[in-house]
């Protein structure tokens, strides 16, 4: 099974990356009002077949490893 996870900065946490990209896009003439950058992960589990088990596993991995809970939150997009 394969899980897709998105990690994004919490609201209120400065996103210099996103802001810099946004500023450049604005300069190029794109009227973007906000841009925020996050991370995306695809995780494959060959052995596991049970969705809820995978979900539990992914939540654990995301909370412990993929995301820095002090400034980030995560979301499991899809498991299939």
């Amino acid at each position: 099974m394969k899980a897709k996870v998105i990690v994004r900065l919490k609201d209120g946490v400065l996103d210099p990356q996103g802001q810099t990209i946004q500023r450049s896009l604005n300069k190029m003439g794109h009227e973007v009002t906000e841009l925020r950058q996050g991370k995306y992960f695809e995780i494959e589990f060959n052995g596991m077949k049970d969705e809820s088990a995978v979900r539990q596993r992914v939540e654990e991995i995301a909370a412990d490893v993929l995301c820095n809970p002090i400034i980030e939150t995560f979301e499991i997009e899809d498991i299939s």
Partner: protein
Amino acid sequence: MKFGVVIFPGSNCDHDTHHVLKSVLGQETVFLWHQDTDLQDVDTVILPGGFAYGDYLRCGAIAKFSPILESVRRHAQDGKLVVGICNGFQILQEAGLLPGVMLRNAGLRFVCRHVWLRTENNQTLFTNACQEGQVLKIPIAHNEGNFFISKQELAELQENQQIVFRYSDAQGDVIPEANPNGSIDSIAGVMNRQGNVMGMMPHPERASEALLNSEDGRFIFKSMINRVH
């Protein structure tokens, strides 16, 4: 020879490069501002190291859209010299003037240290002052210098002798242990098919004065100066 050193807002080797060209090597050298399009009649354009636009997205991703880059492209098309050092190399790749892309270093860390480079082709406008196979001591300082290219394009680079420098040990042996960032085929510097645009990750401007532990970088600048007029 007249050199132009481009300043992007986040360039940080612009003054270093200018210093070597002007004060150490006595060449006429001017700065070129990224928002301008006038290249001030320079013979050679140098895109220096740094973090052109912060490079939070990808190194060079934003810089390729700056006004000066259009002029640099034309300069290159006219067969004149363009050199990208470190971030400058990345920008030239993003702009399509040089092949390949830079991935994150294999070790996933920024690496700053002296490395050895073997001159793979000394019949270029950038290396004609080097001996065949000459080993140069020049520092690197980057996080994304892991040169990557498709197998087929790599074969073309090899065939056309576009590979200018490879990472080697002090004896000039190209061995995996001497590769600081995981670059494919240990590539440290390449040029375009026409041979007038070159990019290298190591910083020759940091190795052009005896006080700074190596003067080997001068061979590269001298090569460019040699061919002038």
